């Protein structure tokens, strides 16, 4: 059997079997194609994917306490945090020793800063300990440390330290979703209504984004329809009205909305001029949610119109005409025949606008005031103001998760390979 197969197998000019030769050629083709893509893939990996992964690590990283207080955290392992008793002398001795060495390396405030995110008071506790600890020379360290600050005598203090002495934490994610771990019991509880900010902010971001999607759809649909019905020559000219804002810098468009909407702005002046409002009744259209919605609807409108237009262009006019000639009322023909055909465009445009809206930062920051800011503004706040990078990263990862989820929908509807620009 084998012999027969050997006989009939084809060979190339140099004597190698055709099968092997073909496989080799295909492998070479694959290699060549891959080598062309590789430089960009490498670049994107280093300059983009790694930074995102780094952020992911930041959101769970908890190594500060363990790295600066290694002996204390090790000693705390033998202490049962729910026993109702303070840790023994060994732990206190390690803590005193390590605060001394951390103070020398100016690291003790880092631990305090980290634990302060969990429970306020730790920052000052460690700063104070850094000053007082050099006076503690002889055992018993337990009494001496408690004497320096009675907080060291609270079981709660040690519970917080123990629960943050592992390399990783889910604390930032809990905080980002308005949950808190009770240190006394280790149970996870949601924050009281008045203290919850992040869920509200996520919710507001999503609601405003939906409002923007709805408005862009309502405003964009008639125009896209009109563009698809007029002659190509006319639509080529009118599409400039869509493309010009699309290509204009985001900051230019935001600036113009500030000029239009502010209290002393163009729209208020105009409304006073026509007598619609009085000088005292100037409308507050900026630095609130209204400002964000108006400006972002304008900014994102082209992202709705362009996909809608490209879908509507392909719907044959004869469909509606056929429906009307069969006796349907023009409205019914539109609603039952034309509208369902635009669904892919509506889907693509809506998801695109939603994905873009939910991650917006610049426009809400400039025109959003207090009631119109998004979750992105909170991320920026934690990175550049509060410096709670772990929490900022955790919020970022959650937002990224939401965006990717919607992107999967987008991919199902449109396909990333069919993504078109302008």
């Amino acid at each position, binding site marked *: 059997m084998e012999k027969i197969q050997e006989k009939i197998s084809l060979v190339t000019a140099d004597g190698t079997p055709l099968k092997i030769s073909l496989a080799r050629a295909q492998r070479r083709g*694959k290699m*060549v*194609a*891959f080598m*062309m893509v590789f*430089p*960009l*893939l490498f*670049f*994107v990996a280093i*300059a*983009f*994917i790694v*930074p*995102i*992964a780094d*952020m992911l690590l*930041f959101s769970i990283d908890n190594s500060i306490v363990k790295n600066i207080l290694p002996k204390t955290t090790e000693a705390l392992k033998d202490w049962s945090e729910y026993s109702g008793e303070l840790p023994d002398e060994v732990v206190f001795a390690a803590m005193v020793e390590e605060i001394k060495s951390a103070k020398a390396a100016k690291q003790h405030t880092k631990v305090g800063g980290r634990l302060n995110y969990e429970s306020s008071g730790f920052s000052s506790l460690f700063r104070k300990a850094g000053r007082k600890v050099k006076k503690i020379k002889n055992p018993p360290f337990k009494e001496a440390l408690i004497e320096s600050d009675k907080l060291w005598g609270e079981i709660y203090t040690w519970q917080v330290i123990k629960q943050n002495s592992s390399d990783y934490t889910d604390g930032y994610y809990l905080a980002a979703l308005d949950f808190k771990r009770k240190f006394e019991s280790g149970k996870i509880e949601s924050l009281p209504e008045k203290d919850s900010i992040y869920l509200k902010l996520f919710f507001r971001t999503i609601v405003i984004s939906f409002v923007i999607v709805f408005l862009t759809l309502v*405003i*964009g649909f008639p*125009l896209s329809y009109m563009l698809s019905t007029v002659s190509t020559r006319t639509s080529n000219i*009118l599409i400039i009205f869509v*493309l*010009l*804002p699309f*290509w204009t*810098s*985001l*900051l*230019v*468009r*935001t*600036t*113009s909305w500030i*000029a*239009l909407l502010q209290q*002393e*702005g*163009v729209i208020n*002046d105009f409304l006073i001029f026509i007598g619609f409002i009085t000088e005292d009744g100037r409308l507050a259209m900026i630095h609130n949610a209204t400002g964000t919605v108006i400006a972002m609807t*304008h900014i994102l*409108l*082209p992202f709705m119109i362009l996909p809608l237009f490209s879908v509507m262009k392909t719907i044959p006019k004869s469909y509606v005409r056929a429906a009307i000639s069969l006796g349907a009322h023009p409205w019914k023909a539109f609603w039952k025949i034309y509208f369902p055909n635009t669904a892919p465009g509506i889907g693509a445009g809506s998801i695109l606008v939603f*994905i873009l809206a939910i*991650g917006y*930062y*610049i426009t809400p920051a*400039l025109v959003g005031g207090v009631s119109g800011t998004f979750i*992105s503004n909170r*991320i920026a706040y934690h*990175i550049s103001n509060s410096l709670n990078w772990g929490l*900022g*990263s955790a919020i*970022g990862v959650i937002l*990224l998760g939401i965006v990717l989820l919607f992107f999967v929908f987008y991919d199902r509807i449109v396909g990333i*390979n069919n*993504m*078109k*620009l*302008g």
Partner: protein
Amino acid sequence: MSNLPPYLSVPERIWHYVFWMICIAVLFFLIFPLLVIIPLSFNEVPYFTFTKKMLSFDPEGYSLKWYNEFFTSLNWQGAVRNSVFIAFFATIIATFLGTLASLGLSRPQMPYRTLITSLLISPMIVPLIISAAGMFFFYSRIGLQGTHLGVILAHAVLGTPFVVITVTATLTGFDNDLIRASQSLGATSTTTFFKVIVPLITPGVISGALFAFVTSFDEVVVVLFVGSYRQRTIPWQMFSGLREQISPTILSAATLLILITIALLTTLELLRRRTERLRGVTPS
């Protein structure tokens, strides 16, 4: 719009005109915010409003002082220089790597195409604030935060998806018979590449490069985090200006940016027509 078919009923005629009014209102909504900035930038007083003098077309109500400010102030001139410098190098990196990758991605033998394409265009999908945060952490760690190189690399990454998409789109409509024809006529693969492939994909490459340039030129979130005052670009300067003291210099900068946009749109349109002509497609 004027020649309606005679068989339409009165309500249908009314609806037709109402519909056109709606469309004109939408067009107005799209374009008015851009146009309103232009006269405001010639304001005499340092506010974002039309003064009485401006509305009565009194020449005294208008001035060029904000343009003067724009072209002489160190802040703005530094911003212009940085914007052009950063966008130029970011575009070169993005265009070179993006075009090469697109040529690879368009080969039929390319393995894991969908996965790799998704990775390559991910910088376009991830919200800018998240990219900016990640880059801020990582670039600070490796000492690139607050350097021109850092901002250039960040912008190059953000621009590559646009190059990949436009060039791949050009290559999708590519007629492979042209390559076979060239080879059958005795051309080497180098000659084929430069004489046949390059001229055909050039419009795609140029429009991809324009996209990459605009991405960098307009980008502000990443510059705010990865850059510092020394890397301030025009949008950076506008953003901090809008947050601190609002001066119509921002409006003059905005007006100049609108003019650049118009020039750019015209270029893109000419390129599109060239592609269609080369492909032998009549403009649809």
